[in-house]
């Protein structure tokens, strides 16, 4: 989404640049689902349905934004779900036990998440180990740490947290969102800015495009790789805080499999798993599509919730095939 191409694109007559195609496909899919839902179900076609998707998935969106950075460099971060759970657990236990105030707890949790990401990024870079295995280790570590804190779910009764959980921010015409949605939206905007207008962001794309070339062009590839895992760690911790708002509890079994949801959202959003191509905006669409599938199944009423997984599975198949065709065509 380099701005030049956007400003110079005059109208729809010009052919759409190839890199926007996957995002457009996702956008069309989303619109089609929404229209189909609106035709089929009573009360579906309102704006609140979409806003509810955001409300219910704000934490996933934040986590997926961090994952977008990692996948854009051609890496992967499997630890995010576990870090989310660890964050809820640390927040809940610190507030329930010693009674720490939220303005101390939240920064601490964000710091822990970022540090975990930093360490994993450093290992990936310094020892040249596949991110898959490093973050897998990070996943087990973080998940295990949850249970050293406690094996039971810890409720959160802090007034600030409950306020965050219950506040409705009214928009126009009976539409409302939660504060978490605003946090998630800020995260998306910040990520988009960093990716498109800063050296770090462009180096992320360059590294994903060709790590070897990026090195030979004298770019700080190592620093960038460490940075993206740190960002992902930070986003996971932030997602964990948002999930604590949403659940009002800390539990070691929160966010099981969320890393896979986040990866699915990024891929459905049109980001190439090999790196170098994709947009944060696509990730937003990916999360929306995943959320809308859940909504549709709720509206349908008769279908079990496992159908969500089945649809996500099918969608992923379609999208990875699409990516394959897409990247095969680009190769000479």
């Amino acid at each position, binding site marked *: 989404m380099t701005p*030049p191409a956007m400003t110079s694109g005059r109208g729809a007559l010009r052919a759409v640049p190839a890199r926007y195609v996957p995002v457009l496909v996702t956008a069309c899919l989303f619109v089609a689902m929404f229209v189909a839902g609106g035709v089929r179900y009573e009360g579906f076609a309102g704006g609140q349905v979409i806003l509810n998707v955001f409300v219910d998935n704000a934490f996933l969106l934040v986590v997926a934004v961090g994952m977008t950075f990692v996948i854009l460099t051609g890496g992967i971060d499997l630890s995010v779900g576990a870090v989310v759970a660890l964050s809820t657990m640390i927040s809940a236990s610190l507030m329930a036990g010693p009674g720490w105030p939220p303005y101390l707890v939240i920064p601490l949790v964000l710091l822990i998440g970022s540090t975990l990401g930093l360490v994993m990024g450093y290992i990936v870079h310094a020892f040249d180990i596949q991110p898959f295995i490093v973050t897998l280790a990070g996943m087990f570590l973080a998940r295990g740490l949850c249970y050293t804190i406690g094996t039971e779910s810890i409720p959160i009764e802090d007034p600030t947290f409950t306020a965050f959980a219950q506040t409705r921010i009214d928009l126009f015409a009976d539409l409302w969102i939660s504060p978490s949605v605003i946090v998630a939206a800020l995260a998306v905007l910040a990520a988009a800015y960093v990716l498109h207008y*800063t050296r770090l962001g462009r180096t992320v794309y360059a590294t994903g*495009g060709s790590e070897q070339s990026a090195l030979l062009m004298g770019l700080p590839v190592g620093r960038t790789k460490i940075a993206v895992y740190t960002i992902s760690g930070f986003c996971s911790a932030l997602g964990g805080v948002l999930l604590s708002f949403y659940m009002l509890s800390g539990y070691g079994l929160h966010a099981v499999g969320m890393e896979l949801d986040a990866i699915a959202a990024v891929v459905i959003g049109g980001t190439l798993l090999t790196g170098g191509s994709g947009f944060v905006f696509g990730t937003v669409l990916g999360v929306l599509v995943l959320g809308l599938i859940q909504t549709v199944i709720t509206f349908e009423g008769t279908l079990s919730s496992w159908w969500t997984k089945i649809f996500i599975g099918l969608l992923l198949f379609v999208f990875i095939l699409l990516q394959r065709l897409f990247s095969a065509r680009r190769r000479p």
Partner: protein
Amino acid sequence: MAEPEPILRMSGIGKQFPGVRALDGVDLRLLPGEVHALMGENGAGKSTLIKVLTGVHPCDEGTVELAGREVAFAGPLEAQQAGISTVYQEVNLCANLSVAENIFIGREPRRRGRIDFRRMRTRAAELLARLELDVDVAAPLSSCSLAIQQMVAIARAIDVDARVLILDEPTSSLDAGEVEQLFRVMRRLKEEGIAILFVSHFLDQIYEISDRMTILRNGRLVGEYRTSELSQVELVAKMIGKELADLERLHGEARVFDRPLVEARGLGRAGAVEPFSLTIHEGEVVGLAGLLGSGRTEIARLLFGADHATTGEVTVGGTAVSLRTPRTAMAHDIAFCSENRKQDGLIPDLTVRENIILALQATRGWTRPVPREQQDELVGRYVKALRISPPNPDHLVRDLSGGNQQKVLLARWLILEPKLLILDEPTRGIDVGAKTEIQRLVAELSDGGMAVLFISAELEEVLRLSHRVGVLRDRRLVADLPNDDALTTDVLLETIASGGRA
């Protein structure tokens, strides 16, 4: 004419790799505003010299002076900052970014921390205009042709006030028009006083663009010459480094070959070797001569089905066949002894017997093991016939000398009793004694009716063994000469140098 002071002077450069002396006392000087060709066969040390210059490898001996000051770079980035930029054969850019970004990434113009795309595009367009290129700088690099990508790499290289520009085989994937475009850019840079070090296997291009050249052979300096004062024949002779003596021929009296075994018609593979036609008769030894990288191995790989041909057809014994995989080629009794016996052929931790029996076993399939007595019988026969030493089939292959390893590889293919045996550099890196034995063996095999395609960098060897010699140049089969008394290494050199136009 007074020569200007060299901008770059490398003297007495030596570089030792484990087991190999890659460079030994090499001098190189570059004058501002000249195109200097670095010549030598593959493995002569050109790449190593460039890597030493740009700091990829530290040099063990000698000094590098840039504009009179002694320098030693810790890496390509440092060299670039000092004004020595390199453009590699493979375009090292990010195809997913725009043209402008590829030129400027890492040093983008910024305003208050934000990348100033507008200024970046303007400057990129100016820079490309300096190279007489008109490209949409906002377009992704992947939408540009290879030649344009190459120019973008050059634009990136010269943006940092380059004083020395190294072009490492930039033309190998360009077509004629694109090469012309590149040369225009090179001439323009030359006028601006930039010293260009140019590496290419294409002799015509060297003679078109370069002012002077430095020739390397086996890691040693052969000399520095003005291009205008050195003929192509002399150049090739200096690169190969053989006194042009004519040796006796191994094969006996000229025989008549009238039973074509393998015929290739218009066979070619885009980017590897241009379409060629070649007929190999039964009992005939066809030699392939040409510089390294001229397409010799590519022809062999096509005939063995290791690469897919993009054009043309092959007939074996009169019927058209499709050689899609080495297995189909083996089914048609074609065997291929590859150039790189360590990498592609022998398994060093298996014994001589196991290595020899491997190909035979592969053709039978794993469910039908070769009986032990038959193994012993076959292996014993070939160990004796090829005089493999030590003559113990249970010896590990890695303990054998290079020449004996080569014989083991030969034995592996010979027990298949192929009709066509392709030998790619079978005598490289082995001692003289083993060499003559392998040559003698080839002659015997052809007397016995086997056709042999013999590839060697050594022209004398090709001449001694072959009944016919195909000459390759720039990935094209330029001549197909009968090996009679008129054919000497001089004639071959002449043909390689002139491209068969003489």
